[in-house]
């Protein structure tokens, strides 16, 4: 298994994480994915990249720097995105009862490794 997939698999080992993927931010395409069955990688990637870009523009318009974390919270889970280097986003899907604090730490660590 290559190091990229190992990094994604490590994120998915956090309890309650249904999947992780690396996405090209500018075009919303999947670079690599480790998703549970039933998750549509291509669609999730496109929407995650689009939503993250919108929040980035909103933050910048408000005079804030580029966000380090963007989260979409819904009834039964959460989507988390973290920048992972030039034009890349690390995306994770968490269940409602997942330990989001731990998931965020693992995502940030993974993003740092991917960016280096």
């Amino acid at each position, binding site marked *: 298994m290559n190091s990229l997939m190992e990094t994604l698999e490590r994120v998915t080992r956090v309890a309650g994480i249904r999947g992780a993927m690396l996405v090209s*931010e*500018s075009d919303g395409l999947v670079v690599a994915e480790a998703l549970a069955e*039933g*998750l*549509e990688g291509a*669609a*999730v990637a496109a*929407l*995650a990249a*689009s*939503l993250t*870009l*919108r*929040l*980035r*523009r*909103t*933050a*910048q*318009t*408000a*005079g*804030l*720097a*580029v*966000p*380090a*974390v*963007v*989260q*979409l*919270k*819904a*009834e*039964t*889970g*959460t*989507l988390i995105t973290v*920048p992972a*280097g*030039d*034009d890349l986003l690390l995306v994770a*899907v968490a269940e409602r009862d997942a330990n989001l604090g731990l998931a965020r730490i693992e995502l940030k660590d993974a993003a740092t490794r991917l*960016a280096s």
Partner: protein
Amino acid sequence: MTDPIRDLTARLAADPQSLVFLELGEALRVRGQLGAAYKVARMGTNRYPELAEAHDLLARILADQGDRHAAAEAWKRVLDLSPQHVGALKGLAFLAFRAGDPASALPYLEAALASAPDDEGLATAVTRIRASMEVAARKPEPEPVRQLPGVETFEPFESARGVVLLDAQGLRLAGELAAPDGTEVGDAVAAHLQGVSREAGRAARLLGLGAWQSVSAESPDGHLVVQPPTSATVLLLVRDPRVPVGRLALMADQASRAARAWLERLA
């Protein structure tokens, strides 16, 4: 559709001595590719150490990266080269304001306004900061409990600070939001958020997560939360990064309740 960054990169490769690096660095910064933007800007300052615009570009990128000290140094270098440089003066004002020091921001903004007297945003920012400093000078020390984030009532809602309520067309209904330099940005932010409810809802549905509840973003210099108080409105709450994200979510719930009450009073 062509990719402007690819075009600019090709132009720079064809003529490495050209000033196209300024456009390329800015395009990368706006797109959030800060690592690449930094490399381009640093290459530019090395090649043109006496070019103020190159250092200004570098400063903006450093500010976006959250390195305020290095950004301040870069903007001071700009002023060494071009003492009336409006971008550098605004940038240093931004850093001072962001550090919670409006008194230090004011001289930079006044100098910028002197160089660009037709800049309405600058004039507004100077007026706002002067007014806020006068109010602060007159106001007695607030009670400690009022300083605790999380106990806000968001009343009167129509003039609540750091909150924007917008309709489905991206028009601001209530609330006020100022950028760190004092410029009112509520309308511009509302426009950027038009359609966010549909986009977030679609993403949540596709993931099988049910209805969306909020979207949050954490920047080094501020946290923001977006919520749908009603099906036809969206609320944005922005606070200092010292407010933990979990508490900010609770504050957003409070603000949404205040928004719904305000909308009911209007109906």
